[in-house]
């Protein structure tokens, strides 16, 4: 018990919250970016454009099948060999965005597939082009159906930011490690704190999804 009291000193909590802030920043940036790119890639893959869609499809499968940890690793250590040297924060956001875009692309593709084919036919026969039908009619409906899957993915994303401890991104998990590095007895209190803080952030996302689900229903 004493361990808990000591571990939760204001100084430690503040340090943990500083980590939380980085976690949230990286998450928000990656969610926004990967949502945009993932949607575009998902549409391209769905649209079956000759060769192009197939190639994009292969890249999507390749990247989403790799452990994110390795993508972070390659982004930070591999890219400098190609002449681009990202800072830790940039590397983390870049890696998360690349990886999560591929996951989201797959969700978007399957979301569009699940829309009744009559919707596209209605749009076409009404004079809209294929791309207009896709953008104005299919995609908004698909997005609604995709909310649960998307939010699950975003929840994973928030927690996956902790993988960037490997490149010493000062996010919450890394800060927790530093704190229990001071005194190894703090480890369990820190894990409890991590559980609570991640829960708060991720549960907020869950609630948001339920809210959107209801509003769009």
């Amino acid at each position, binding site marked *: 018990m004493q361990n808990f009291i000591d571990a939760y000193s204001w100084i430690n909590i503040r340090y943990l919250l500083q980590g939380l802030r980085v976690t949230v920043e990286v998450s928000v940036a990656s969610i926004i970016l990967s949502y945009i790119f993932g949607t575009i890639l998902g549409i391209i893959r769905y649209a079956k454009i000759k060769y192009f869609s197939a190639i994009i499809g292969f890249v999507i499968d390749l990247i*989403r099948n*790799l*452990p*994110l*940890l390795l993508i972070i690793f390659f982004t930070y250590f591999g890219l400098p060999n190609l002449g681009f040297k990202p800072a830790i924060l940039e590397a983390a956001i870049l890696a998360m965005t690349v990886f999560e875009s591929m996951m989201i692309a797959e969700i978007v593709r399957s979301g569009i597939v699940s829309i009744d084919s009559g919707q596209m036919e209605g749009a076409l026969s009404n004079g809209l082009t294929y791309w207009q039908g896709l953008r104005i009619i299919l995609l908004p409906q698909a997005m609604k159906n995709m909310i649960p*899957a998307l939010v*699950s993915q975003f*929840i994973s994303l928030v927690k996956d930011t902790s993988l960037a401890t490997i490149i010493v991104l000062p996010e919450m998990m890394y800060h927790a490690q530093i704190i229990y590095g001071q005194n190894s007895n703090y480890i369990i209190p820190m894990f409890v704190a991590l559980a609570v803080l991640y829960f708060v952030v*991720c549960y907020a996302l869950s609630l948001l999804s339920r809210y959107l689900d209801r509003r769009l229903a």
Partner: protein
Amino acid sequence: MIHIFATQWQSLLYGLGQTLLCSIIALFFSLIIGSLFAIFEIMPNKLMRVIGRIYVEVFRNIPLLVITMFFFVVLPLYVAKINGFTAGTIGLTIYTSAFIAETVRSGIQSVDDGQMEGALSNGLSFWQSMRYIILPQAFKIVIPPLGNQFINLVKNSSVLAFVAGFDLMYEGNMIANDTLQTMPTYFAIGILYLIITMPLSYYMRHLEKKLA
């Protein structure tokens, strides 16, 4: 990298085996547990719905590492000692089952209500209707997101590395440390993960097409 394969193939192979074993066990049980809680979430009984909801929200919103550490270091103090592999596999199962529950629930809800009514009026009980009629159709609908979850599961099995589960990531860390050939080692590990996840994702794609 070829050098890594050539000299370290024994460790890598062992790690691959552990990762595969853990993934298969966790996949099997998380599918069952996840489906169960998905059903809880849509049952007429309010209490069951609340239980389902709590399970899903708690376990999908806290980090896998925390769940796994609980089984590895806390449980042994009070209940029974379990090794890293077991702790990791249990943690992974619980964690993934929460995501699967959420996925399957949305699948169940997108099966036409008429299917349940047809089954009930045909004399089947709620659970029988679920098992024979609703779930098979729900799974078909959610194959793509379920595939995402399966792939996540395989990759998340690297949590074993934190509890000395001797999986691929653990062996990779070992090799990288001993040889200091960090990049080639992780490249090799990446390829070995692809060997598991690529066929899995192509199989899911195949299922999706076949059942469409």
